[in-house]
């Protein structure tokens, strides 16, 4: 019933959600393909995450002169979630062009390919969760009531990723240079986003971060996991950005969906 209503809605995003079987299957197939014939399979992600965090943690806690008990949990949460977000942004640039074979053959909603990519990265993220849980428990970070908001924070971030994926995917299908621009931009954004360094190091200049959308999503996610006080600000910003991108992506899909196949 719900599915039928979604399919009738004529909004690409909702129709794609109703077609969940296809992107669910394709996402799992992507992961199976990536780790086929490997012994650890997707747990390579867990392992490589642990290795990077251990290495970064030891060095940067010295550089920032921070207690490792405090720094490592912060780094772990930030690093894992940043990887999730940035991989999605990078993969967005090829989300439409990479699906050329299917797009030119069957008329599926474009969201199928976006959701496939985001869902694949969510599954990969779930494989890194044990690392977060392990580190948070080991360093005895503790938790507060904010933890209950974590699913909401993750949902908000995922929705942001889906809408951004739509927009970047379509823009990159039309303008092939944009993908390259995004690639180099994401490296810069990593350095200007508090992932390995703490936002309070900016002291009086924290306002600089307000212009960084990725910062707000990292903040709400970290807020839920890190046993820190609740703060409205990043929540309001994240909700506002997600809604704006959502509307914009619906608009851009409506404008271009009849022409996307001609660009491939």
């Amino acid at each position, binding site marked *: 019933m719900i599915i039928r209503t979604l399919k009738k809605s004529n909004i690409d995003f909702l129709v794609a959600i109703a077609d969940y*079987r*296809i992107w669910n*299957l*394709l996402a799992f*197939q992507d992961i*199976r*393909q990536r780790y*086929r014939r490997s012994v650890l399979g997707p747990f390579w992600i867990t392992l490589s995450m642990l290795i990077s965090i251990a290495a970064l943690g030891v060095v940067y806690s010295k550089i920032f002169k921070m207690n490792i008990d405090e720094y490592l949990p912060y780094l772990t949460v930030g690093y894992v979630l940043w990887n999730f977000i940035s991989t999605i942004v990078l993969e967005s640039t090829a989300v439409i062009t990479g699906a050329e*074979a*299917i*797009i*030119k*053959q*069957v*008329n*599926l909603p474009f969201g199928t390919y976006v959701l496939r990519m985001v869902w694949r990265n969510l599954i990969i993220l779930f494989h890194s969760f044990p690392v977060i849980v392990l580190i948070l428990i080991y360093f005895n970070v503790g938790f507060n009531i904010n933890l209950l908001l974590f699913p909401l924070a993750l949902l908000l971030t995922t929705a942001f990723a889906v809408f951004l994926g739509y927009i970047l995917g379509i823009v990159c299908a*039309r303008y092939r240079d944009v993908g390259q621009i995004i690639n180099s931009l994401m490296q810069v954004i990593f350095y200007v986003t508090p992932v390995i360094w703490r936002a309070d190091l900016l002291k009086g200049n924290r306002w600089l971060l307000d212009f960084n959308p990725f910062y707000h999503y990292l903040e709400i996610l970290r807020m839920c996991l890190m046993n820190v006080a609740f703060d409205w600000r990043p929540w309001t910003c994240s909700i506002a950005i997600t809604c704006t991108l959502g509307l914009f992506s619906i608009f851009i899909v409506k404008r271009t969906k*009849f*022409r996307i*196949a*001609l*660009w491939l």
Partner: protein
Amino acid sequence: MKRIVLKDVTLDFPVYNSSSRSLKSKLVSISTGGKIAIDTRDQPYVRSLDHVSYEISDGDRVALVGHNGSGKSTTLRLLAGVYHPTFGQISTKGNVASLIDLSLGMDIDATGYENIYMRATIMGMSPHEIRKRIPEIEEFTELGEYLNMPFRTYSTGMQMRLAFAVSTCVKADILLMDEWISVGDAGFQAKAADRLNNLIQSTPVLVIATHSPALVKKVCNRKIELEHGRLIDDQPI
């Protein structure tokens, strides 16, 4: 019942290559392909279909004929809902199955069974429907234990057998084909032809793009001829 109605359909392909500007100077008419032109915004484009109108009803077995680049494949994609008219209208009633690329969605590292599910799901079948068709696919392909092996271990012929078997599982109102599909060795070819004929018989509308007069005679009852994207002939045969 009218299944497909095209009203004055024109389809232009924008050309975005950086060198496309130089096309301006060579707007010559050529023997193949659609007309190349420049629109009001200085954007070069290829006119792939040029003011085409026709209707296709139940029982029609349409042969699309014409030179390379006359618009046959574009028409198939238009009917599949992949392309949309730049000008004009198209309305399609019923669900469309496209047998243009059999190996769509096939993953060489996945097993035969996994590939059956992937391909069939992309074509819009539910897991329940797929499960019901599996014994039939097993029997038809004669692949036996190979269905549990990675697709890459198959010979080309075996890969085609599986792709063909899954693709022809689909029940649709409109079937699109690019040339007649022929797979496998001599014995299998006969079997495949039977299966394809059965599928065509049970499908209300068939549209097939072809260069083979023999095929047109054998399976079609109507011929639509295109040239440079224009409809030049439409008659029953």
